[in-house]
C-alpha cells in the first residue's frame, strides 16, 4: 500500500466531482460574464438628478443660447436653448463638443504658470495667484516707472462686453492706446459704411430671415460665417419659402453645393463681379429709385461702373460669362427683398475695401439698406456706462503716442484696429518698441497670417502674458499665463451675435464650479489695477468682477439671470440713410507671389467641422472631418483633376506645397469641386499647442499665407497667395 501517482489522480477526480456540486464553478462563470461586461477601467457616469441651466456659448461670435444638461452638479451635454432667438434650440458641432473644452484637462491651464524654459518649450512652473498678480504688477509697474506706458499692448478677440471693456479701461488708465482687436469681415464693411453713409463704428447686420434672394460673394454662410447656427436656420427658411441663394466662389463649398446658383468665380475677382452686377442693374434701370433719389453720387458711380465693369469687359477676368452676370444681377434686382453679402469663408479676414464697397453699393442699388430682408446698420450696445476717471501724468503721456498698429491716426485714422500691422510694427520698432503684451481670448500665434513673422515678433517682446484657459500656441509662447475660467465656469455678458440684426445681450454664467485653479480675467484685471497705482485703482471702484457686472447690467440683470439673454425683437433700424455712392474705388492689392514662379493660387478653406478661431477644434469635432481633409495626421489640399494632370500629382499622394511664406508637406485630394489652378487648403488644422488629441494634425494654413494692406483702410485684404505644388 503506497501513495502513488494514482492516489493523486483520485484526489483530483474527487476534487473535480466535488467542485462540480458546489456553487464555485457556476458562480465564477456568472461573475466572469458580469466582469467582462463591466470592465473595471471603463468609466461609469454617476447617477443623479437631471437638471438644465441656460447660458450662452462663447466659443465663437455666434452668441447662441445654450442649455446645459447636468446630472447633479456635473455638466454632461450642451444643447441649444429653444427660447433663444438666434439659434432657437439649434447648436453647432463646436458648441456641442464644448464639454471637451471644459474637461479636457491636458489642454487646460490648471493654475497660474510662469515660464522657466525657453519660449515655446512648454516649460512652466506653477505659481500661486498671489505671486502671479504680483508678477504682473511688478512688470507693468516697471514699465510705467520708465514712462513707457504706451509700450504695453493687448490683443483680444473683442472689445465688447464687460471683461473686454475692463481690459480696455485698464489699458487707458495705464496709458496705452494699444488695445487691438482681432479682425473680421465686419471691419471692412464698417469702413465701407463710413465711406458711403458717414456712420462710424456701424455694426453691419443682414436680415437674412426676411430675405428672398441672398447673393453671396464667397461668404461661407454654411461654413461658420456670422452666427453659424442662425445661418443654418436662415438657409433652411430660405429653402422653405423657395427663395434663392446664389454663391460666387471658386470652390464647391457646402454653401455653393446648397446654393440654387453657383458662380465659380476666379478667386480675387469677386469685387469686380459685384461691380459688374451693379453695372447691369444701372444699365437696365432696375435700381430702386426711391433709394437712389435720396442718395447722392449715383451719376458718378454709374459712369465709374459702366466704364470699368460692363459684364462683357470682366467676363474673362472673373471667369463668369456676361450673360450669367446679367441674368443673376437681373434676378437679384427683381427679387422682393434681395441682399448681397461678403466676408470670405467664415469671415475672419476683413478683405479689401473694394469688395465691401461693391457689396454695400449692390445693396444700396436695390434699396435694401435698413429695409426688411436687407443690410442693416445697427449700433454697438451702450449699456456700459462707467464713471469717468482721471489719468495721471504717466498715462496722459502714454496716451499721446500713436497706436503701434497705425490705426486711428494718419492714413488709417478711420480704422479702429489693425492687427495685421502688429508683427511688422514690433519687428521694425515702429515709433517705439512693444515692451509688454497681454493676450485675452485670442491666439495670435496661431490665427495670424505669416506664422514665422509672428513668432519672431513674439520673441522680440520682452514680456508676453496670456489669459488663456488653454495651453494654446500663444500661451506656450508666453512668460506668464493667468488662466481664465472657461465659458461654462464664469459669468460674462455677450452683447453681440455676428451679423445679427436685433439688439441682443446674452449672459454666460457658471454652470459648474471651476474645475481648476483659474480666475475670471475681470477679477484679475481689477486686482492688478488696484495694486499698480492709485490713479489706476481709482478707475476700478468695484470689489470684484461680479459686482462690476451686476452694477453695469443694472435692471437688466434679473432678466438675464433668469432667461440667459435679452433682446428687442421689435427693433427696426432708422429708415432714412444718407447714402453717397462712390465715384472711384482704389484697387485691392495684388495677390502676393510671383506668377512665374508660383503657378497656382492657394486659398484657405473654411469648414463648419473645423473651428479656425482662437479656440482649437475639440477632438469630437475633428472626428467628423472627412479623410479627404485629414488623413491620419496629414492634411489634404484640394486641386482640380486638370491641375493634378499638369503637375503629375496623384490622388491622396504626398506633395510639397510652397508659397512665398513657407513650405509644407501635404497630400492632394483631386476633385472637380475646385477650379483649375486653385489649391484649397483647410483652415483650423496644424496646432502645435494643446494636447496630442488636438496638436500635430495637418498644417496651419496661416504659416503659408501673408497679409496684404488695403490701400485705404490698412486692413488685411489678403484672400490667398500664389503657390506651387510638386510631387513629394
Amino acid at each position: 500500500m503506497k501513495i502513488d501517482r494514482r492516489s493523486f489522480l483520485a484526489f483530483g477526480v474527487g476534487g473535480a466531482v466535488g467542485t462540480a456540486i458546489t456553487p464555485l464553478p457556476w458562480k465564477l462563470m456568472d461573475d466572469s460574464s458580469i466582469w467582462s461586461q463591466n470592465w473595471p477601467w471603463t468609466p461609469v457616469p454617476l447617477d443623479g438628478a437631471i437638471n438644465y441651466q441656460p447660458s450662452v456659448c462663447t466659443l465663437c461670435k455666434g452668441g447662441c443660447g445654450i442649455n446645459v444638461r447636468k446630472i447633479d452638479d456635473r455638466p454632461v451635454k450642451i444643447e441649444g436653448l429653444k427660447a433663444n432667438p438666434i439659434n432657437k434650440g439649434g447648436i453647432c458641432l463646436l458648441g456641442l463638443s464644448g464639454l471637451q473644452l471644459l474637461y479636457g484637462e491636458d489642454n487646460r491651464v490648471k493654475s497660474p504658470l510662469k515660464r522657466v524654459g525657453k519660449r515655446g518649450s512648454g516649460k512652466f512652473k506653477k505659481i500661486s495667484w498671489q505671486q502671479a498678480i504680483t508678477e504682473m504688477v511688478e512688470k507693468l509697474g516697471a514699465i510705467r516707472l520708465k514712462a513707457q506706458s504706451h509700450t504695453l499692448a493687448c490683443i483680444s478677440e473683442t472689445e465688447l462686453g464687460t471683461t473686454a471693456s475692463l481690459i480696455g479701461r485698464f489699458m487707458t488708465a495705464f496709458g496705452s492706446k494699444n488695445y487691438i482687436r482681432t479682425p473680421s469681415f465686419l471691419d471692412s464693411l464698417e469702413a465701407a459704411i463710413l465711406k458711403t453713409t458717414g456712420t462710424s463704428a456701424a455694426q453691419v447686420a443682414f436680415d437674412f430671415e426676411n430675405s428672398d434672394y441672398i447673393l453671396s460673394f464667397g461668404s461661407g454662410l454654411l461654413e461658420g460665417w456670422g452666427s453659424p447656427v442662425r445661418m443654418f436656420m436662415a438657409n433652411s427658411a430660405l429653402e422653405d419659402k423657395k427663395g434663392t441663394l446664389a454663391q460666387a466662389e471658386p470652390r464647391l463649398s457646402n454653401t455653393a453645393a446648397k446654393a440654387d446658383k453657383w458662380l465659380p468665380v476666379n478667386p480675387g475677382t469677386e469685387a469686380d463681379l459685384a461691380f459688374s452686377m451693379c453695372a447691369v442693374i444701372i444699365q437696365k434701370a432696375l435700381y430702386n429709385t426711391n433709394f437712389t433719389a435720396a442718395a447722392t453720387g449715383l451719376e458718378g458711380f454709374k459712369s465709374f461702373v459702366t466704364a470699368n465693369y460692363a459684364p462683357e469687359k470682366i467676363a474673362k477676368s472673373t471667369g463668369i460669362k456676361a450673360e450669367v452676370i446679367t441674368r443673376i444681377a437681373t434676378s437679384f434686382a427683381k427679387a422682393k427683398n434681395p441682399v448681397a453679402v461678403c466676408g470670405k469663408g467664415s469671415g475672419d479676414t476683413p478683405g479689401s475695401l473694394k469688395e465691401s464697397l461693391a457689396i454695400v453699393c449692390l445693396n444700396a442699388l436695390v434699396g435694401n439698406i435698413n429695409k426688411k430682408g436687407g443690410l442693416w446698420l445697427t449700433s454697438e450696445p451702450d449699456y456700459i456706462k462707467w464713471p469717468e476717471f482721471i489719468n495721471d501724468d504717466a498715462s496722459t503721456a502714454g496716451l499721446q503716442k500713436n497706436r503701434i498698429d497705425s490705426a486711428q491716426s494718419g492714413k488709417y485714422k478711420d480704422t479702429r484696429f489693425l492687427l495685421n500691422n502688429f508683427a511688422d510694427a514690433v519687428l521694425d520698432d515702429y515709433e517705439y518698441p512693444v515692451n509688454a503684451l497681454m493676450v485675452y481670448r485670442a491666439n495670435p500665434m496661431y490665427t495670424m497670417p505669416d506664422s514665422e513673422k509672428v513668432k519672431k515678433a513674439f520673441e522680440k517682446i520682452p514680456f508676453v502674458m496670456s489669459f488663456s484657459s488653454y495651453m494654446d500656441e500663444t500661451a506656450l509662447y508666453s512668460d506668464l499665463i493667468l488662466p481664465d475660467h472657461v465659458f461654462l465656469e464664469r459669468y460674462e455678458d455677450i452683447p453681440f451675435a455676428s451679423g445679427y440684426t436685433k439688439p441682443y445681450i446674452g449672459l454666460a454664467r457658471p454652470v459648474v464650479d471651476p474645475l481648476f485653479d483659474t480666475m475670471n480675467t475681470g477679477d484679475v484685471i481689477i486686482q492688478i489695477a488696484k495694486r499698480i497705482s492709485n490713479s489706476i485703482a481709482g478707475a476700478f471702484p468695484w470689489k470684484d468682477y461680479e459686482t462690476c457686472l451686476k452694477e453695469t447690467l443694472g435692471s437688466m440683470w434679473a432678466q438675464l439671470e433668469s432667461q440667459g439673454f435679452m433682446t428687442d425683437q421689435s427693433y427696426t433700424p432708422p429708415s432714412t440713410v444718407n447714402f453717397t455712392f462712390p465715384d472711384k474705388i482704389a484697387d485691392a492689392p495684388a495677390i502676393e507671389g510671383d506668377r512665374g514662379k508660383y503657378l497656382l493660387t492657394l486659398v484657405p478653406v473654411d469648414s463648419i467641422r473645423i473651428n479656425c478661431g482662437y479656440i482649437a477644434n475639440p477632438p469630437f469635432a475633428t472626428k467628423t472631418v472627412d479623410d479627404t481633409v485629414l488623413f491620419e495626421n496629414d492634411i489634404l489640399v484640394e486641386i482640380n483633376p486638370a491641375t493634378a494632370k499638369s503637375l503629375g500629382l496623384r490622388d491622396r499622394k504626398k506633395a510639397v506645397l510652397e508659397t512665398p511664406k513657407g513650405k509644407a508637406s501635404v497630400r492632394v485630394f483631386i476633385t472637380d469641386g475646385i477650379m483649375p489652378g486653385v489649391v484649397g487648403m483647410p483652415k483650423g488644422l496644424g496646432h502645435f499647442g494643446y494636447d496630442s488629441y488636438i496638436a500635430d494634425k495637418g498644417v496651419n494654413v496661416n504659416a503659408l499665407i501673408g497679409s496684404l494692406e488695403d490701400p485705404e483702410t490698412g486692413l488685411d485684404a489678403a484672400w490667398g497667395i500664389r503657390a506651387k505644388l510638386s510631387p513629394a
Partner: protein
Amino acid sequence: MSDSDEKNGQSGIITLFFILGFIGSLLLGWIIFPELLYSKKEQPVAFNHALHNEEVANGCESCHFFREDGTFSGVPKLAQCVECHEEPIGVSEAELTFVTDYVAKGREVPWLIYSKQPDMVFFSHAAHVKMGKQDCVTCHGHIGESTSLKPYEENRFTGVSRDIWGGNIAGISMDSWDSMKMSDCDKCHKELTGRQTSVQTQRDACFVCHK
C-alpha cells in the same frame, strides 16, 4: 501479503484520496469560496431605518422619492438629511459622526448601496413602482424595518454587491427579495403577466434592460 490484499489496500488508498478530494472541494466550494469571494465593509454611518420610518409621513418615499421628471432619487443626498440634521438630533455616536464628518464639512456620505445593479443593467423604478404598482418590499425586503445596517459585502471579482446574487451562495432564494438576478426579474415578469414567455423573448428584448 497476497497480491489481492495489496490490490485491495491500493484501491482503499485511492478511494480515500478520492473522498479527501471530494470532501476538500466541497469545503472549499461551499464554505471557503464564499468567504474569499466577498469582502466586508461597514457602512460609513450607522443608520436606523425603523427609527426614521416612524418620523416621516410618507414611508420609504419620504427619502427615496421620485423626482419631478420621473427618475428615482435612490439613496438620499446630504442636502435631504440636512433638512432635519443641520444640528445633531440626540447624542448617539452615529449622529455625532454624521454631523461632524459629513454635515459640517458638506461632504456627501459614501453610502454603500446593497441593491446597486452593475452598469450593464438598466432598471426603471418608475416602470415598476408607478406603472407596475410594485411595493418596495418585493425587491428590497424589509430593510425599512431594520434598526441597523448589515455590513456591505462586495464581490472582489466583479465589484458588485452580494445582494444581487443573494446571500445564498447556491443562488437559492426563498423570498422575492433574496436576490436580484435576471432570473428574478424573469420569474416575476412571468408570474405577473401570466405569459409563459418573459420580456426577454420579445422584440428588442435585450435592449429593454441592457442598453
